[in-house]
């Protein structure tokens, strides 16, 4: 156990920061309380640095995953931190500043809010370190549980409470489902350790219990990535929560979900069974259907929305569907054929551009002091607030995948890997869905950019929080500036998604010599396919 510490320093840093934030955030001194977000920021920077220097873990399914994924978590976490600034306790601190009331720890939410934020990111990082089903379950829950609370305390209205309860109940259901799946996998394989399970599956095949376990576990985890049919909570929760928290919900649980899907699929490997270069047939079929449905349902329903946040929620569902294509494609020799790298890279792109849109929404307020939600309330934003307007336009166009913005380059590897893996119908569905998505994204762009301001409509004002427009500006800048760094980022994603195939010898211990010969062909066939393809 102790040797695992080497991979856990980022999490440990975040955990220490969490404890600090909990104490400092309840301090009676206002200046000390203000330190909370700074502590988070420093901790995330430190975690990013530590993640970058984490050694490879030769025992893990994805030995080189940690530096990229934890670094990604820390970087997007920093952007989220900027967007989250001022979400809680603003009125309270205002009153305290003016000497109206005294600080009462029972009324303040700041300590919980920031510590839960760090807890959630810690959980996300732990997902990447997981090498055991129990660990994975705990990491997933550590990612999700704090977000339930954050949704509720993010606004003072009743909607966020409704959203929080809904999210919690359905989240618990999702957790129950994948825990049940994990239990069945344990039943089939006789171990919770990933490597043992892999060896058992490689040796004996999945069997009916193992298959059921995999399918149920994947179904449960699809709650985290908001994939159909576990997507129903998404629009309500995103709409009910404050925009910065919605931005976080769109990234953190999704990334955790994809880590779990990577791990679960890694248990069986892309190349399961003889001569196959795919996941086991049942798993492949289910993920295929889920991916196609998720893209289509998300995009079609998004076109029908008049609320920006509901639209973004449905679009977030659709983006999960896109990424599932990469999961199905699986690992590959080249960047263009490596679906896992495509997913990892797309997570980064999605994190960057998604924070931007929500940060713009979060930095605006209507005459009631609430976030604007109706699409029409953003009419003519470019002229009344150019920075906000252009930021949301750039990020939206990038989400649409408009060339040559970051979102476009994010999608290209998904396409190429899907095609390389022979998933032509699915890639076609992906293409059609990109076209459908254009409809609602451009509607948002047209509203912000082209529509004249409605004279009768209440004026839109900016929130007096500096950090949020900065987050928006960083996102909008990111979708352009990162264009020059796409090549190294893709290479990093490619490196870190290296999948370690199950050792053949382990798998065939009791078998005879000729079987040994047969199986010493690596099981992940596409990963290790000889260069004969080149001809």
């Amino acid at each position, binding site marked *: 156990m102790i040797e695992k510490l080497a991979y856990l320093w980022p999490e440990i840093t975040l955990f220490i920061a969490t404890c600090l934030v909990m104490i400092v955030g309840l301090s009676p001194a206002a200046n000390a309380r203000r330190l909370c977000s700074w502590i988070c920021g420093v901790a995330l920077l430190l975690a990013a640095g530590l993640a970058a220097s984490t050694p490879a873990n030769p025992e893990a399914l994805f030995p080189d995953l940690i530096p990229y994924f934890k670094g990604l978590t820390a970087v997007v976490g920093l952007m989220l931190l900027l967007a989250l600034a001022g979400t809680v306790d603003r009125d309270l601190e205002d009153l305290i500043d003016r000497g109206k009331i005294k600080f009462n720890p029972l009324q303040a939410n700041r300590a919980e809010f920031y510590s839960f934020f760090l807890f959630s990111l810690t959980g996300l990082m732990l997902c990447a370190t997981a090498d055991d089903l129990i660990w994975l379950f705990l990491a997933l829950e550590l990612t999700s549980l704090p977000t339930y609370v954050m949704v509720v305390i993010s606004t003072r209205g009743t909607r966020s409470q409704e959203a929080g309860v809904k999210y919690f109940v359905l989240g618990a259901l999702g957790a129950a489902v994948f825990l049940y799946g994990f239990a069945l996998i344990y039943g089939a394989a006789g171990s919770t350790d990933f490597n043992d399970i892999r060896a058992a599956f490689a040796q004996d095949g999945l069997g009916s219990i193992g298959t059921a376990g995999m399918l149920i576990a994947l179904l449960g985890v699809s709650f985290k990535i908001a994939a159909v049919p576990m997507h129903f909570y998404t629009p309500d929760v995103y709409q009910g929560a404050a925009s910065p928290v919605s931005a976080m919900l769109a990234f953190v649980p999704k990334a955790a979900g994809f880590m779990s899907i990577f791990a679960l699929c890694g248990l069986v490997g892309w190349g399961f069974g003889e001569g196959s270069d795919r996941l086991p047939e049942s798993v492949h079929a289910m993920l295929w259907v889920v991916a196609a449905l998720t893209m289509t349902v998300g995009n079609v329903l998004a076109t029908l929305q008049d609320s920006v946040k509901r639209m973004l929620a449905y679009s977030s569902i659709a983006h999960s569907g896109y990424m599932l294509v990469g999961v199905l494609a699986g690992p590959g020799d080249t960047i*263009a054929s490596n679906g896992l790298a495509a997913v990892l890279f797309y997570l980064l792109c999605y994190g960057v551009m998604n924070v931007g849109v929500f940060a713009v929404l979060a930095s605006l307020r209507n005459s009631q002091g609430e976030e604007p939600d109706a699409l029409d309330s953003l009419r003519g934003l470019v002229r009344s607030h150019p920075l906000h307007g252009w930021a949301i336009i750039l990020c939206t166009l990038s989400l649409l995948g*408009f060339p040559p913005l970051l979102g476009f380059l994010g999608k290209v590897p998904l396409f*190429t890997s899907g095609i390389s893996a022979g998933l032509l119908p699915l890639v076609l569905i992906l293409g059609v869905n990109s076209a459908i998505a254009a409809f609602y994204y451009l509607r948002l762009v*047209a509203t912000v950019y082209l529509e004249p301001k409605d004279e009768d409509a209440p004026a839109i004002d900016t929130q007096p929080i500096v950090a949020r427009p900065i987050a928006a500006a960083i996102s909008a800048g990111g979708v352009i500036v990162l264009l020059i760094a796409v090549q190294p980022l893709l290479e990093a994603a490619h490196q870190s998604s290296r999948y370690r195939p199950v050792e053949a010898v382990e798998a065939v211990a009791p078998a005879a010599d000729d079987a040994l010969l047969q199986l010493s062909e690596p099981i992940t066939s596409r990963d290790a396919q000889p260069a004969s393809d080149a001809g």
Partner: protein
Amino acid sequence: MSPWLLIATMAFPLLGAFAAALVPAARARSTALAASLVSILPAIVALDRFDWSDAAAFQGAGAVEWLPALGLELSIGADGVSMLLIALSALLGPVCVLASWTAINTRQGLFYGWLLALQAAMIGVFCARDLLLFYVCFEFTLLPMFVLIRVYGSSGRVKAATKFFLYTFTGSIITLAGFVYVAWQAAQQSGGLWSLDMAVLGEVARAMSPGQQAWVLGALLAGFAVKVPLFPVHTWLPLAHTEAPTAGSVVLAAVLLKLGTYGIFRFAMGYTPDAFAAFAPQLAVLAIVGILYAGLICWVQTDVKKLVAYSSVSHLGFCVLGLLAANHTGVTGSVLYMLSHGFSTGGLFCMIGFMYERYHTRDMREIGGLASKMPVWSSFMVFFAMASVGLPGLNGFPSELLCLIGTFQSDAAWSLAGEPGADGMTLGRWYGVVAGIGMVVGAIYLLYMVGRICFGELREPAGHDDHQGAGAARLPADLNAREIVTLLPLAAGCLIFGLYPKPLVDASAAPVARQVQLVTDAAIDARTEAAQPTGFIDTSGPSPEVAP
């Protein structure tokens, strides 16, 4: 020729776009005019430096690697046909700015910015030598056009803009699928290394089986046929034309539609010659139906702008027909048509725009006999209408004639290539005869339009001068100097290339010959294989050094 010349023809309008968007609104149009005039310079120098003796080669080639892992790079280069279209696009810049001079009064920075951005994107399409740049520019043309129609169009602009966008975007997504398929084939052959270089992919695409080529051709045409537009996917065009502001209509007719025919010329002929030859008769039927059907629709229009819009559909049918003839005459005619249609129909849209500025109506029932009131306007109107009809001496004539002659000769093309037995696989005289009726219909509706608007008793819409306020007494006046200057380059193009089209024919000869050779070879191969069912494979396929 240096690649910087091509880059400058793209970059100048792009920089101008930013300048026009950023300067105070009052200076936007003069900034835009200056930028578009300056943008002509590199185009002229490029025309001069271009080595016309080797017009089939892609000159001014240059490439920047961007994402080698995914085979993404940006590379440029232009052959003779590209150069002509680039020059046309550059020339139209100032024409469009001048045509909008007084018509656009609100949000001028936005308008001129997008207009120039559109010009840059169109030039980008014509000089792209890799599919990334081609596709990005091809798609990017949608955004400016969408904005121009949506914000500055007339009453039905929202619907028109949406329909325009959805049609063309959906079509080009399918085109992208076709491109990606070809790129994937290439990647498989090169061991997983992706490349988007047009020449490389062209060789891979031509080596595909006829079945594969047929699918790729279908995917390519999904985007290009919508853009042209070919019957039956033409329905977005009349709407978009009618609602677009004048400059939008001019760019749309003069250059944007040519992206479709250029795509067919470059990719449908260059990438999938087997399928192109095999499906030419069926596609020609679509083109001819479009010619006649749109022509008949023109006849019953009362909205003069819609009439010209449908006439575009009809005329572009000839252009596609010339390409489908796949012989030197027809394809040359088609390339000429791409240019001449830009001059004549661009001119017609300008005329209608000027009329609309004065009368605020385009309804031929309300308006008529303008020759007595606006003789200069009417003269230009008659001139452009005649150019569009195909009056000998004006530019419509040689291009339309060559397209038709090409169609007539199309069945002979293969025998000219030394092949026996031209057995009706390609177009022939009946295609030419039926399409020829389209010329007659074209003459009818355009003369009918001119007759109603320019001649007869003066009819003006009631209360047309209410809009004019204090200056009502002297309006509507005839064309002013600015408007005449707008029209002169277009009129000069119509006249010069009508009387002496030889420079254009010469300039496009080599690239045309190359594309024609590809299709002819493919058709001959197909016929040889059909004639020799024993399995003999003709190895004299397309020579490897030719690039699409």
